[in-house]
């Protein structure tokens, strides 16, 4: 593979393309794979796989650039990155945030690849044992992150419940139409991209209208990024080896689960990092651990998702579903026989993933250097540009203007909620995890006479306990903080 310059060309091209698409709100790496899929028909199988995997790799990091710089996650997998990454930017530490994000992506990606090489088959077969109860509690466990998203836990839960309700809109798994109020556009449920842009990006954009620059005032680096400073951020990961490896492994495990994917991986990882961190109070205000947890997990999940896709033929995310399509186009049948019939090509493409992480580092630095100039552009020019990209991003998810209008509605609701101290992130979490919880709960009701029988399954019981702790612990902590505050006053 190393002697084939064509492969390197496609690797660089794929990573760059994926990164640019990932950075544009509304456009994701999976969309990049979809766009490039027709061009791979005439490629040989290895080149085709390497090219598409490179787009996938680039897309995962690309989304974090805009999440850090303008609080607009390029893809849902970078939602958690924006929490601390953007807070760092506001503090004038955009280089640090970008560097952390880049290195975390590279390290998470490498750990994911190593997992893919060594542990693909055994773990993928374990995840097959996950039934409806486990998947339901995976969704509930994911929702418990809301307890950590705001100082007011009750307001967070209120927002999350609203999100879960929005997530159940559309056709249910038994075929009934719910909550569409007659709109044909809502039959497939609330589209995720408009909701994501509306609830997360638009409130921030509207708030920018009263400022001169993103950071409030012009930053000292005048749009020139200090590459050394970006590269030095590796030391922050070296200082935190347990966090880096643990969140990467969590990402891999979540990635292995069918239908979980990079978004859930990064959110769960962020939540766990916050709960176990000594600096949990700093999360959301520019915590280094927050960026590391989110970015290592979402990149590492790639290895897990690819493992399930290659060994079992089950796509763990939109991107792996596209890659599955690419394999089928090549005339291959994903599954255990794939490793017997096409072992060399599969392992060559897997090992190319390791090289892609290095390519991502090189291209990532260049793109970060260009993107950092955004910080010093006056917001009076930036706001129309971001608004137009947001509108087009929402529109292009289904080529429907309805989605762009929905995005604006969500944006206004999100902005008013933000002003009333209701966090909007839990709504997005609810929209993502609500349908999963709804579907699996329905399956549980069909499979079990009594709901409580599900707790006889050990993994379910562990997940249920962790979920309970995830809600109760922030409530206790919040009460303690209030009491200390009152005493101090």
């Amino acid at each position, binding site marked *: 593979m190393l002697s084939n310059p064509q492969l390197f060309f496609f690797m660089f091209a794929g990573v760059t393309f994926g990164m640019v698409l990932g950075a544009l709100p509304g*456009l994701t790496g999976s969309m990049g794979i979809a766009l490039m899929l027709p061009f791979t028909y005439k490629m040989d199988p290895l080149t085709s796989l390497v090219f598409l995997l490179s787009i996938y790799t680039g897309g995962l990091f690309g989304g974090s650039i805009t999440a850090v710089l303008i609080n607009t996650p390029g893809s849902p997998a970078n939602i958690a990155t924006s929490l601390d990454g953007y807070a760092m930017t506001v503090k004038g530490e955009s280089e640090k945030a970008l560097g952390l994000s880049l290195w975390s992506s590279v390290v998470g990606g490498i750990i994911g690849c190593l997992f893919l090489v060594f542990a693909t088959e055994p773990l993928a077969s374990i995840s097959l044992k996950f039934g409806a109860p486990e998947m339901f509690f995976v969704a509930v466990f994911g929702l418990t992150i809301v307890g950590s998203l705001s100082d007011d836990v009750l307001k967070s839960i209120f927002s999350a419940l609203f999100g879960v*309700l929005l997530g159940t809109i559309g056709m249910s798994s038994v075929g*009934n139409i719910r909550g569409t109020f007659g709109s044909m556009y809502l039959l497939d449920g609330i589209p995720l991209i408009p909701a994501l842009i509306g609830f997360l990006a638009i409130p921030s954009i509207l708030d920018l209208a009263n400022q001169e620059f993103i950071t409030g005032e012009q930053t000292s680096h005048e749009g020139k990024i200090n590459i050394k400073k970006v590269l030095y951020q590796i030391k922050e990961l070296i200082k935190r080896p347990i966090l880096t490896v643990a969140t990467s492994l969590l990402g891999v495990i979540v990635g292995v689960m069918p239908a979980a994917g990079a978004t859930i991986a990064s959110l769960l990882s962020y939540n766990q990092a916050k709960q176990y961190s000594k600096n949990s109070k700093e999360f959301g205000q520019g915590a280094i651990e927050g960026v590391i947890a989110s970015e290592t997990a979402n990149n590492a999940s790639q290895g897990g998702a690819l493992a399930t896709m290659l060994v079992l033929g089950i796509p763990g995310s939109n991107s792996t579903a596209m890659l599955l399509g690419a394999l089928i186009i090549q005339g291959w049948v994903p599954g255990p026989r794939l490793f017997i019939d096409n072992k060399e090509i599969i392992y060559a493409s897997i090992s190319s993933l390791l090289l892609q992480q290095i390519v991502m580092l090189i291209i990532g630095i260049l793109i970060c250097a260009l993107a950092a100039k955004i910080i010093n552009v006056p917001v009076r020019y930036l706001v129309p540009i971001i608004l137009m990209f947001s509108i087009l991003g929402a529109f292009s998810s289904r080529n429907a203007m309805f989605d762009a209008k929905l995005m604006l509605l969500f944006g206004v609701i999100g902005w008013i909620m933000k002003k*009333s101290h209701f966090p909007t992130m839990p709504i997005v979490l609810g929209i993502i995890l609500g349908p999963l919880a709804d579907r699996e709960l*329905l399956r549980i009701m069909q499979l079990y006479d009594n709901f409580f029988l599900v707790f006889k399954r050990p993994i379910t019981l562990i997940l249920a306990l962790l979920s309970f702790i995830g809600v109760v612990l922030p409530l206790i902590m919040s009460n303690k903080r209030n009491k200390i505050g009152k005493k101090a006053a």
Partner: protein
Amino acid sequence: MAYIQKCIIPTLITIYALSYLLEVSGQNPTDQTLIRPVVVLLVALYVINTVKDIKETRKSIKDEKAKLEFAKYKKIVFLVSSCVVFFLIVEKIGFIISSILFCFTTLYILGVNNKKTIIIFPIVFSLIVYFIFSRGFGVPVPQGVLNI
């Protein structure tokens, strides 16, 4: 006034949740398995939050910052309105013209006074965006009167 501002969205969300429950209550009970407990919990939290907010608002009522600052929100209201106008005209006159008008309006709202910038920027930006999305990514943006 500050209290109304605080509770308007939670109230609307609660009304929405109840009407959603009402809509599904006539359907198959299995479809309500998750929705019913979620709505009940949401209404309970609404009551708790409202009581809490009333108490907090009473305490901070004398605080000047709690008052509504309409001047501060003027730009935001105009920005949202220009988005609404964009949606009203885009499918009739097409993306390029409506995008030029949208950019021109938003630049003006945000205080750009330079005549060259306010004219050239919207045209160049709209054309670039159009070609990236329409030709590059194959997104079928509304053509309208200009069928390029």
